[in-house]
């Protein structure tokens, strides 16, 4: 029996064939370090990295490819956006649905004199953007908001929050780990100053890829977390002060970036709206299918348009980890139980500390996968209700 992979919110799998081919091609035919030496292979490797910036800039409607830096994941990008930017005395606002990749750096900064206000969301994970306004203070430096929750699947009101930030002259940082490649993102229209993305989820790149878009000029206000060789300005001992080198010390993950480039091209070739529609359809069929079982609670907003294809649910009297083991052993379905690195989101939903079962659908899942998943939940539910 083939395995049914419903853990796309953790990382997408399988990857498009083009991604594997691009990585293999890079390693077999290029292999050099971009930006380090002047020879042909190094230049070609540099072109691959630049092509990836160009593709991502187009995807996010960023003004210039050099506004994008590569990191090893969204977590590193969010750490640059917090630890690199905030100083004692700054105040920031975030939501109660955030992942620990934003919560932990902010909680750390709290111990260093940064003030953090968490805007409460509804149990469905929804944030009323107008709730942000009364939280703004004279020293509010930035708003940090996830584009969509990795637990409830709720899509956050990024565009309206961005408008409020702009109105008050506050920086707006968006965690697009769950949405880059899955739903449209426009940094101009959404007023996004910092956009953290990961490469290995809906952009279909390999693990170890991700990045950060920085609005022009903002790089001057942010310190790099890592310094070292960049291939540029080698005669100087101080860190370059220009994009993208300021934030890209050390030999980059070029093979990963080659794969990410192929992944982004796959997304653009398939059409992001088509991907969104397909995935939304899968998730909604699943939600409809399991909602009819008594004792099954589905979390997150009811409306399909308000969510990404991440579905959290619980079966009355059944722990998520027991259910996940059952799904794996009996149905070959891969899921993720528990707290999903987001304790605050689970507190908001009322599912802390037990957590939930999470099935997250991807572009490569079939209608048959959804039917099997519904059947699996149905069998567990019958068993609990005997």
């Amino acid at each position, binding site marked *: 029996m083939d395995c049914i992979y419903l853990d796309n919110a953790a990382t997408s799998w399988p990857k498009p064939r083009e991604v594997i081919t691009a990585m293999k091609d890079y390693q077999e035919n290029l292999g050099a370090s*971009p*930006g*380090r*030496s*002047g*020879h042909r292979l190094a*230049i070609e490797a*540099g*072109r691959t*990295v*630049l092509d990836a*910036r*160009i593709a991502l800039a187009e995807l996010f409607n960023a003004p210039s*490819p*050099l506004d994008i830096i590569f990191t090893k994941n969204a977590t590193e990008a969010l750490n640059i956006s917090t630890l690199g930017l905030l100083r004692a005395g700054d105040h920031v606002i975030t939501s109660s649905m955030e992942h620990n990749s934003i919560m932990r750096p902010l909680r750390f900064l709290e111990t260093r004199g940064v003030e953090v206000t968490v805007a409460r969301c509804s149990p469905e994970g929804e944030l009323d953007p107008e709730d942000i306004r009364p939280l703004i203070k004279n020293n509010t430096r930035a708003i940090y908001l996830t584009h969509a929750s990795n637990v409830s699947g709720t899509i956050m009101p990024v565009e309206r929050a961005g408008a409020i930030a702009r109105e008050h002259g506050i920086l707006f940082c968006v965690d697009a780990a769950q949405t880059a490649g899955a739903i449209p993102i426009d940094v101009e229209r959404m007023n996004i100053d910092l956009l953290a993305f990961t490469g290995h989820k809906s952009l279909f790149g390999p693990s170890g890829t991700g990045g950060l878009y920085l609005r022009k000029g903002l790089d001057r206000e942010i310190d790099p977390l890592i310094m070292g060789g*960049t*291939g*540029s*300005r*080698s*005669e100087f001992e101080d860190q*370059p002060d*220009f994009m*993208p*080198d300021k934030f890209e010390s050390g030999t980059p993950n070029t093979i990963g970036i080659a794969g990410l480039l192929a992944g982004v091209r796959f997304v653009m070739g398939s059409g992001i709206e088509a991907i969104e529609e397909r995935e939304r359809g899968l998730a909604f069929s699943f939600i409809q299918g399991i909602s009819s079982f008594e004792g099954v609670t589905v979390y997150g907003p009811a409306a399909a348009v308000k969510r990404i294809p991440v579905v959290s649910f619980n079966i009355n009297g059944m722990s998520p980890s027991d259910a996940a083991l059952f799904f794996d052993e009996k149905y070959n379905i891969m899921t993720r139980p528990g707290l999903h690195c987001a304790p605050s989101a689970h507190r908001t939903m009322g599912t802390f500390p037990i957590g939930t079962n999470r099935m997250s659908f991807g572009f490569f899942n079939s209608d048959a996968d959804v039917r099997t998943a519904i059947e699996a939940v149905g069998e567990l539910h019958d068993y609990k209700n005997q």
Partner: protein
Amino acid sequence: MSLMARDYSFLLFKSVSHALSAEIILKRHEIPFKLIPVPKQISSDCGVCIRFSPVDNERITGALSCAVDIDRVVSAGCDTIFS
């Protein structure tokens, strides 16, 4: 440095990302140029630069202005550098 080098001009950039961004634009404008390792006589940096014929000077700077940050232009026949 050979006499040949005197006959060319060079565009230097802060980093390879900028040099390769310039490459894309110059190709689009069909202006002849060559991407080469930065000659030691010009800079001790280990990156690449764009070598071009002085006759294309204006077209090149025109095409790149506002689009890519140019760090330095080294003009043909610059004896202080090619000594």
